[in-house]
């Protein structure tokens, strides 16, 4: 009945696999971005769970999670800007049709 580290790690594994599946199957660039967000969230959950169950009053896991949130926000901003640019040039964000760089 007690909730331990393993429970949180299993939830993080579900988040990771769901994000991976989303990245593999979506064709919309923004949809792929949503998958990336899920994977990043699962990594933060791992850091925070280990921080609670292994750390003796240390907060290193939480601070690492904080930095991951900052990186995820930066990544989302740049990726959305790139999506808008791709849409302006090709009038679609379908990743299968944006093949101009393939030559």
């Amino acid at each position, binding site marked *: 009945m007690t909730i331990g580290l393993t429970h949180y790690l299993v939830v993080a594994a579900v988040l990771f696999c769901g994000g991976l599946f989303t990245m593999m199957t979506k064709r919309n660039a923004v*949809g792929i971005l949503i998958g990336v967000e899920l994977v990043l969230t699962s990594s933060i959950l791992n850091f925070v769970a280990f921080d609670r169950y292994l750390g003796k009053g240390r907060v290193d896991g939480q601070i690492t999670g904080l*930095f991951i949130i900052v*990186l995820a926000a930066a990544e989302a901003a740049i990726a959305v800007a790139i999506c808008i640019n791709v849409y302006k040039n090709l009038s679609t964000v379908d990743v299968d049709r944006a093949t101009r760089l393939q030559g």
Partner: protein
Amino acid sequence: MKSEERRLKIEMGTVHMVCPSRSSPFALRSCFSVGALFLSFASTAFASAGTAIDRGVMTAAPAGKLEWLLFNLVAGGVVASVIGVCVSRNIVRMAVWLFICLGSVAMLYFMLAANFLGAIQLIVYAGGTLVLLIFGVMLTSKSPWVRWEAPLVEMIAAGVVCVTLLVSLWAVLLRTTWSGLESVSPGASLATIGEKLINVYLVPFEVAGVLLMIVMVGAAHLARQEE
């Protein structure tokens, strides 16, 4: 099928939105508002519990049967919303499911006694990043209800890969015994996090600040209007 299509035409002539009845705007709106209500109630409850812990009224994060019940509730929410993200074809629905998912994960942070990180997750992730994504959806599709589907073979292959990975991860996690688990950290105060952030983690902190500035300038440059 034509008769099933519901047309919303605003008389100004500027906004023209066509959506199939399967994803009627009413259902979407109610989905949004129920999710937002749920999140706001739950996060208020968790945040007040966190304040009580900080002031010494309560001793720690919930323990025993209450923790078990809360964990199952919240983890069920996370898993359900992840499945929702995976199976939705509609990009706006995916964003709504992601909103619910990030809010539930923030509640898991509250249960792990990481109150500050949970609050930051709600503000930055569920607030800022998601609004950015929804703006991205609105700006990059003629109609937000657009759907592109992967071929069935690719769906099956991706499903097999992900389920195999999940099952193997699960099996490994259940068999692992972690050493050094004897003490559970009681949770740190905000002052501890702040002190550590500008003592031990000063360089990454400054680098993150510079990164955010570069990102701000870069995103504004990338998304600018051509003159």
